[in-house]
């Protein structure tokens, strides 16, 4: 007979099997660094294990895992900002060199450009765009993950898309003006 911890452990590993791809992708789009991404995916599921008793099932497991990942990602971004302030070395936007998108997407110049544009957005814009356009969450689900109103999600998403469009226009000229 399994003890309580083993049951919890099995459950987390089951969640990992089911959702690791989405969580990984979400964190990757938010952070952009492979090593940091792996660490944060690990942290998300470990925290899910330790916080399982407090999970009230008001949302789906997947949404709950995303909200954990969101907290972890935002913490990491804050830490990175502090580190950046301390080092005062680079003024480049954070599009990490270690990120090899071509490994996953073959010969897609424009896709890489889109990815870079997303990466250069401010955090809350990046959050809603990743959740909506990449993960395909509904506004209601995004509101649950971000713990805010649906109206706020819609507003943020609209502004994020406008911002993204401007960045792509700047980078890619007429092509994006027509396609976006």
């Amino acid at each position: 007979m399994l003890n309580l911890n083993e049951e919890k452990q099995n459950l987390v590993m089951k969640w990992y099997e089911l959702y690791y791809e989405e969580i990984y992708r979400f964190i990757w789009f938010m952070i952009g660094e492979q090593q940091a991404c792996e660490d944060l995916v690990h942290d998300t599921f470990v925290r899910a294990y330790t916080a399982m008793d407090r999970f009230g099932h008001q949302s789906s497991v997947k949404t709950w895992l995303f909200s954990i990942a969101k907290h972890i990602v935002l913490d990491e971004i804050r830490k990175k900002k502090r580190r950046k302030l301390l080092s005062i070395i680079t003024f480049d936007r954070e599009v990490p060199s270690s990120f090899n998108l071509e490994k996953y997407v073959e010969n897609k110049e424009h896709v890489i450009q889109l990815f870079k544009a997303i990466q250069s957005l401010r955090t809350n814009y990046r959050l809603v765009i990743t959740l909506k356009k990449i993960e395909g969450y509904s506004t209601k689900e995004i509101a649950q993950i971000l713990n805010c109103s649906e109206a706020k999600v819609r507003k943020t998403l609209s502004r994020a898309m406008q911002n993204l469009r401007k960045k792509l226009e700047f980078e890619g000229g007429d092509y994006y003006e027509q396609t976006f």
Partner: protein
Amino acid sequence: MNKHFEDQWKALKQVKPTNHEKEMIQKRILKSIQESPTSRSQNWSFQWKSILATCVLFLVLGYFLFIFYNENNEKQMANKMNIENVQFSWELENVYGKKTENGLNLHLIDQQLQVGKVHQVTKAEMNQMVNHSPMYVRKELKKFPYQTMMYIEHVKMIDVQLRYHFFIPIMKGQFMHIEFDYPKLDHSEIYNAIATIKIKGMDPYQHDETLYVQHGYSNLIYPVGLKPMSISTSKQVYRWNDGSSLDLQAYLRIIEEANWNKKETKNDSYIFISKDGNEEVTIKMEGNTIIYEFNYPNREE
């Protein structure tokens, strides 16, 4: 073109870790979970520790609440106090009573300093006290809430110059004896207490006009109801909440009637000189603040 753009979003959705990465992360998660301190027994002990910590917290909070409640009670006692079977109150907010064998000791709320006492005495005890202490002033306080005899004792102590004694008959042959030490309490505060005292079961006399008193041995008359703000030998500042300009004019007339001569009026300042010419006082009212400035023309420096 839009389709092309949708394709780009779709392409981005393809991003996923390789199987190797997936397995590596999975192993790390499993290892971390197994090494995490949330085993059942540890969890149990953690819960006990939490309960214990909560209990300690409650005890500490309870202790502080107890102290707070006690202090508050003492502060409330400033308004309602008992000696034997007599309950009384007065409007002296900064003083509370501590019960003793004979009655109450009066203390300042913030400093714990004893500023007086209240107890019940017989007529014989009152006479004994009055006749065997150096009482320099003996006066019946008229128009105060109760028939009150006041004595001012000259006390040669470092922290007490004068001791006010008030005797109020409360039943046949029995008196409430109230003592206040000056300058631990200002004259104005002492008179405020006696002017606002209410004894349960005894209807107080309600005087609708301002009461006037002399502070200690001073010849100058002061209205009752002043609150001291700053007191020095040459300048005294009081808040006179009930004092209107009409009250001030009435007060100035009372001073003149009490053998002080009006010397002059400068702007809003009124200068009076004592009958013997040795003391000069300038009285000025600014809003609810009344200011006294003293000058002694014939005094050698």
